[in-house]
């Protein structure tokens, strides 16, 4: 990432309070530009903005039974652009949920807690590190 370009982060969660608290955390760091969405549908509509990373709540259909859930949103994001790293968020610390997310090609799975933001930041850094390695690799492959 070059220093003049901000990292565009999509935050998707139907819990307005948690969404806001994450947004506040991210806004404190000027390297990020944040867009928040309350539903998976709204996030998908805006994929043309080319987010660098998407942070997606697992349980988006909790209260609105007609909304798409996090996994479907994840699948659709991946179908549109498989290169965007998607980090899943959930308030439940459950292994089967985590494994399921990873099987659907989530980059990471993070439990909502006081330290969620720190762990998100770490995950984002790692995701970009991978992206850079992949880019470098494909560059070298082309050279060869």
């Amino acid at each position: 990432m070059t220093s003049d370009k901000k990292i565009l982060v999509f935050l998707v969660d139907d819990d307005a309070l948690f969404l806001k608290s994450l947004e506040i955390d991210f806004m404190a760091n000027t390297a990020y530009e944040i867009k928040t969405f309350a539903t998976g549908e709204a996030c998908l509509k805006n994929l043309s903005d080319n987010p660098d990373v998407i942070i997606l709540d697992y349980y988006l259909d909790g209260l609105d039974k007609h909304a798409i859930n996090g996994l479907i949103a994840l699948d659709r994001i991946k179908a549109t652009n498989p290169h965007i790293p998607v980090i899943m968020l959930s308030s439940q610390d459950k292994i089967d949920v985590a494994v399921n997310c990873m099987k659907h090609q989530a980059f990471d799975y993070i439990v909502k807690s006081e330290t969620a933001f720190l762990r998100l930041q770490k995950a984002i850094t790692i995701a970009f590190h991978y992206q850079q390695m992949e880019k470098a690799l494909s560059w070298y492959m082309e050279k060869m």
Partner: protein
Amino acid sequence: MQFERKPFKMTGSITAIIQLFEPKIQEKNLKLIKNYDTSIPLILLGDPVRLHQILINLVSNSVKFTSNGSITIDVEMLHQDENEVIIEFKITDTGIGIAEDKIDHIFENFQQATSDTSRLYGGTGLGLAIAKQLTEQQGGTITVKSILDKGTTCSVIMPFQKSKLELEPETEIIEMDPEMKGIKVLVVEDIALNQLLMKTLLDDYGFECDFAGNGKVAINKLENNTYDIILMDLQMPEMNGFEAAQHIRYNLNSNIPIIALTADVTTADLRKCKAAGMNDYISKPVNEKLLYAKIIDLLKKRIPGKEPIRSKCIDLTYLSNRTKANPELMKEMIRLYLDQTPVLIGIMKKGLAENDWDTMHSAAHKMIPSFSIMGIRQEFENLAKMVQEYSGTHQHPDKLPELILQLESICLQACQELTEEYNLINNSQR
């Protein structure tokens, strides 16, 4: 440190330990050889729990690091006189062994094995340090001989008093309270080994624990995390237990239960602890059952409804830290809470009325993160977690109405207090 001196059957102890490891030993296709010296008196005086702890540590290491061959457990009486016997416990394996230059260090590893290491290695590597400490404090010795790739022999030599007493009825197992899960304990203790001992105890209870090396660190941690109870050592550098407790009560205005830990019973002045605002005290070495009972007792007293708590239920320290006390952001967060929470409660009650498990589950689930954001205590968050769990697993339908009622009343209180805070922030901006 003090150890119990109670009558116990040595054969029973050894059998219990072997039984514990038999499945693992069979699974790994190892041979188990037991040589028990039958001249050992049937009943001895000592601390069987500590002895188990020592032997379990040693045997589990042997089993873990041996992939073929055998594990041999020898129990031999080396010496006896009128009053006492000296017994050697020897655990020999045919495992990977330890390099000669490492043997001297294997007992020391605990120094770096703080909560970090134990999280990585799941408590291993600490076993020998604990075993050594426990052995030596009971007047015993522990030695290790090993040849790399051939195997290891650990020997523990320990004295036991002879006894003419009858056995007390066996009541070693702690009755666990199934409601008391996921309790977060802050252990304020400067000595690493005591931290470890406490961790093993708390792990056994199924509690989570965090450590602070002195009162100052503890206060820092309390400002940034939520705990259910504090175990407080009294003698510590920087800030001792009395000062820390006073600070927690009068400066942080927290009524979190605090149990004082003290090494010396004679100086354990319950009045002095009470004066500093602590709820109870327990002397070291800690008796497992007593500690568990005290923790459960204090936590149960705090379950809402049993005691009129009219103190504030919210605490905006966390929010203020997160927003860097930016009034606009704080107002926005509070407004979101005020908008969202009554709706969630409404949905939950509707779900209850219609026997709609999924709806109750979802609403409780969505509510959970808000508790820590608004600094609402863990015990109340646990109400939401219980609603989530019961409705998710379709259990205890009889308990749900009461839980949801309690949750509603605490959320209403939170909303009231937050409205006041909101107005305060608003006024101060003018």
